[in-house]
């Protein structure tokens, strides 16, 4: 996969990209990953290889929401991924070829690039009844996943369904659906990017990290990157000050709702959920659900459809906090929030710091400042 590199200028010219634009893009990636500036050169080099790494995107029991989310990628735009950074050789929703030609393209990648390509998986994998609930080209999804993912250099499960089976797997799981890691156990270099859908900003950062270091960023016990899934939403929430001050939305559209008060009483799952949704946001950083006025549904949490619903039921208690807090407690909460902000600032170090022991942020009972320290 890593053939000799041509000079940067020549490589860029051959792709019709200006050097200035490209270096700008690499700088912003370094910033997203919170890497020290000295890594800029490594990123630039990695992204201008003469031969681009091959990526295949598999879709099983999916809604294509993760594909659509990838199309919304801004940094870099999806066209740069597809044309300049990678060779995106199989992706049902987007590829030119169809039928036999499409299947041949996938098979050629597995044959000619075994051990080198990146496999992205979207959707759950049905395991009941011999695989009849999802076939592509007459082949069962499970057989395709085993065949393609076992020979990949890295596997990226995007969205809740590919991670843990998602909605398809929720009770009563009519088709025996599983996430990739359970359907095909033992895959090497597997990273799970939960969320419904995945946030393309995180996926872009993971891809660039992998292209640069040939390695995945630091992961938690669910094989999720700590930089994206290491912090509690409640701790990063822009409505947090209202929570701390005891100001809540009581009814949809009431004065508190119009003033942007906390949505905890309307069922928000932010206190139990981890994700960098409030800081990265969606669609070019435009917004995120809580900003738009609705509670978080914890869509990046494990098995969230079953474990975090009903979505309008107020959480019974928030570890360490309460809705009817005293002044003393409010003071403690405010301190904790400052600690959390500091944690967020240093979270970038988690990307490269693989020496850190794996931690579970999800559902943690520890106060925020003790995590990620």
């Amino acid at each position: 996969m890593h053939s000799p590199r041509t000079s940067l200028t020549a490589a860029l010219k051959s792709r019709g990209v200006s050097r200035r634009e490209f270096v700008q893009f690499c700088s912003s990636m370094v910033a997203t990953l919170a890497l020290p500036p000295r890594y800029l050169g490594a990123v630039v080099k990695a992204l201008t290889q003469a031969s681009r790494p091959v990526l295949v995107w598999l879709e099983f029991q999916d809604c294509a929401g993760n594909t659509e989310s990838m199309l919304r990628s801004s940094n870099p735009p999806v066209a740069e991924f597809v044309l300049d950074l990678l060779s995106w050789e199989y992706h049902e929703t987007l590829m030119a070829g169809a039928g036999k030609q499409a299947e041949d393209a996938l098979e050629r990648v597995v044959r000619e690039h075994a051990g080198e390509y990146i496999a992205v998986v979207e959707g759950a994998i049905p395991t009941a009844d011999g695989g009849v609930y999802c076939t592509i080209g007459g082949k069962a999804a499970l057989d395709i996943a085993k065949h393609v993912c076992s020979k990949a250099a890295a596997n990226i499960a995007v969205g809740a369904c590919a991670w843990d089976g998602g909605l398809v797997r929720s009770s009563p799981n009519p088709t025996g659906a599983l996430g990739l890691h359970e359907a095909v156990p033992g895959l090497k270099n597997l990273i799970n990017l939960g969320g419904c859908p995945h946030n393309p900003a995180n996926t872009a950062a993971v891809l660039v990290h992998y292209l640069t270091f040939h390695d995945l960023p630091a992961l938690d016990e669910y094989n999720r990157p700590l930089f994206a899934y290491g912090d509690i939403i409640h701790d990063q929430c822009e409505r947090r000050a209202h929570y701390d001050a005891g100001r809540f939305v009581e009814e949809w559209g009431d004065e508190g709702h119009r003033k942007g008060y906390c949505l905890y009483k309307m069922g928000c799952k932010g206190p139990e959920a981890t994700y960098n949704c409030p800081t990265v946001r969606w669609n070019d950083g435009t917004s995120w659900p809580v900003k738009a006025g609705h509670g978080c549904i914890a869509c990046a949490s494990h098995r969230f459809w079953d474990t975090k619903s009903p979505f309008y039921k107020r959480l019974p208690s928030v570890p360490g906090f309460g809705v009817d807090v005293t002044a003393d407690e409010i003071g403690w909460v405010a301190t904790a929030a400052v600690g959390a902000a500091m944690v967020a600032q240093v979270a970038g170090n988690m990307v490269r710091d693989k020496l850190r022991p794996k931690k579970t942020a999800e559902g943690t009972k520890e106060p925020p400042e003790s995590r990620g320290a």
Partner: protein
Amino acid sequence: MARIVVDPVTRIEGHLRIEAQVEGGTISDAWSSGTMFRGIELILRGRDPREAWIWAQRICGVCTMVHALASVNAVEDALGIEIPDNARLVRNIIAATQTIQDHVIHFYHLHALDWVDIVSALKADPAKTAQLAQSISDWPISSEKYFKGVQDRVSALVASKQLSLFGAGYWGHPAYRLPPEANLMAVAHYLEALQFQKEFIRIHAVLGGKNPHLQTFLVGGMATAMDPNEPGATINPERMDFLVQVAKSAIGFVNQVYIPDVLAVAGFYPEWFKLGAGVGNYMCYGGYPQGSIKDPADFFLPRGIILDRDLSKVHPVDPANVTEYVARSWYEYSGGDQVAKHPYAGETNPKYSGPKPPYEFLDVNEKYSWLKAPRYQDQVMEVGPLARLLVAYASGQPEVKALVDATLGKLKAPPAALFSTLGRVAARALETQLLASRLVGWIEQLGDNLASGNVRIHNGEKWNPNSWPKTAQGFGFFEAPRGSLGHWVEIEDQAIKNYQAVVPSTWNAGPRDARGQRGPYESALLKTPIAEPDRPLELLRTIHSFDPCLACAVHVVDARGHVLARAEA
């Protein structure tokens, strides 16, 4: 005689397989099969109806939000909830934004490569390409330098021998007929549309928190709090300005890029205005309420049915006449598979009887799809942008009539040309144009309400489940980008008892019924020429013209609460 199989049909949402019989260079018969099944409606049973929309929305991530809207419509119908006018406007804005963005992505990223040969763009003269582009549109960036840059990018891709997404296309196929300059222009706009769709959809981010899978619907209204003086409100004057600005940018892109491109491409393929019509019945539930949702006569796009291509009469739609067959689908009905069932009485027991994977061919004389076959009074119906446009045109909707007549004039074609593969493509583009201009109006209306202090966004009278009757049932209709969508819900003891969706791509991509009537895809493929059976480009043209969405199309309902039976494979 040859059997051709296209599986996967790519550049669609979901998993679709087409088998077709080719005789003497044309398709003599065809079978459409959905090859994936999830069972979302079964998963919905027993849950809080107020959150059904969050689950149902995940039926599809391409036409995201359409199932959310149909779901809240259905629950509001069941509980007798009238939503505030602001919520109606926000929903119209979100829905129109979805349809505009979806149609643009469909044309450029899912359909264009059936008409546009990327490799041929290498032979184009960038100066002549600029002349061509400037002759059909005043889009400001169409310079020689711009097209040269795009061509360099394509050249580099081809020279690298790594064609990425474009690697396995049917390049050089004899059915491609655009000159190199038109191909280069289209490739440039393919890339521009990629940029457009992600910028434009920021309207959804503001009003829905994110796209895909928006998160601000509520039974009774929307969670987008409004206030003219509060920066913490989702809808405030600053964000209204942003929405207007983004919406106006869509008018520019649609009128100056999308519409001219569709007309230019269509001009090179006139015979495709005669091919691919299919059944000739068209149904539309009606879309975009301008007042109460109970008053479809007042919708922006009217409700109705056109039968047998007769534009002189619009027939009414009665929801009671919608049924589904499973005679050729991998399910079984109690009482036999030969009868159709209405959604309220429907049932779904999956019973796979197809070949064990891996397989080469389906047994198309038996059951062959995970899609059911919806019918209206036992008749096959095509749904989608063309159906909407034809119903509106035949109903005399003035805006639609003027636009369609003007476009047919430019193409020097009679209205009958719309009954075709390219008719679907043109109808989709014209609908985008209509909605883009209407979108700005709805946003401005919302802004006027905001400025006047009308900030009511939710009707909370029935939010508390204790206010509900013991049992209730209702349905929600909506015109999704791909056509008529209906959700039916039955509520008992504050929980969902039954839930069912009858979805646009089920209407269009469904298999034969008990009477052997072909579904719309299957009919539309008849007589399609196939120059090279191992590269069936022409087949893709007609299938893609429907904009298939298979995740939507396959679902399971068990209205009687049966435990889902596992198939004996």
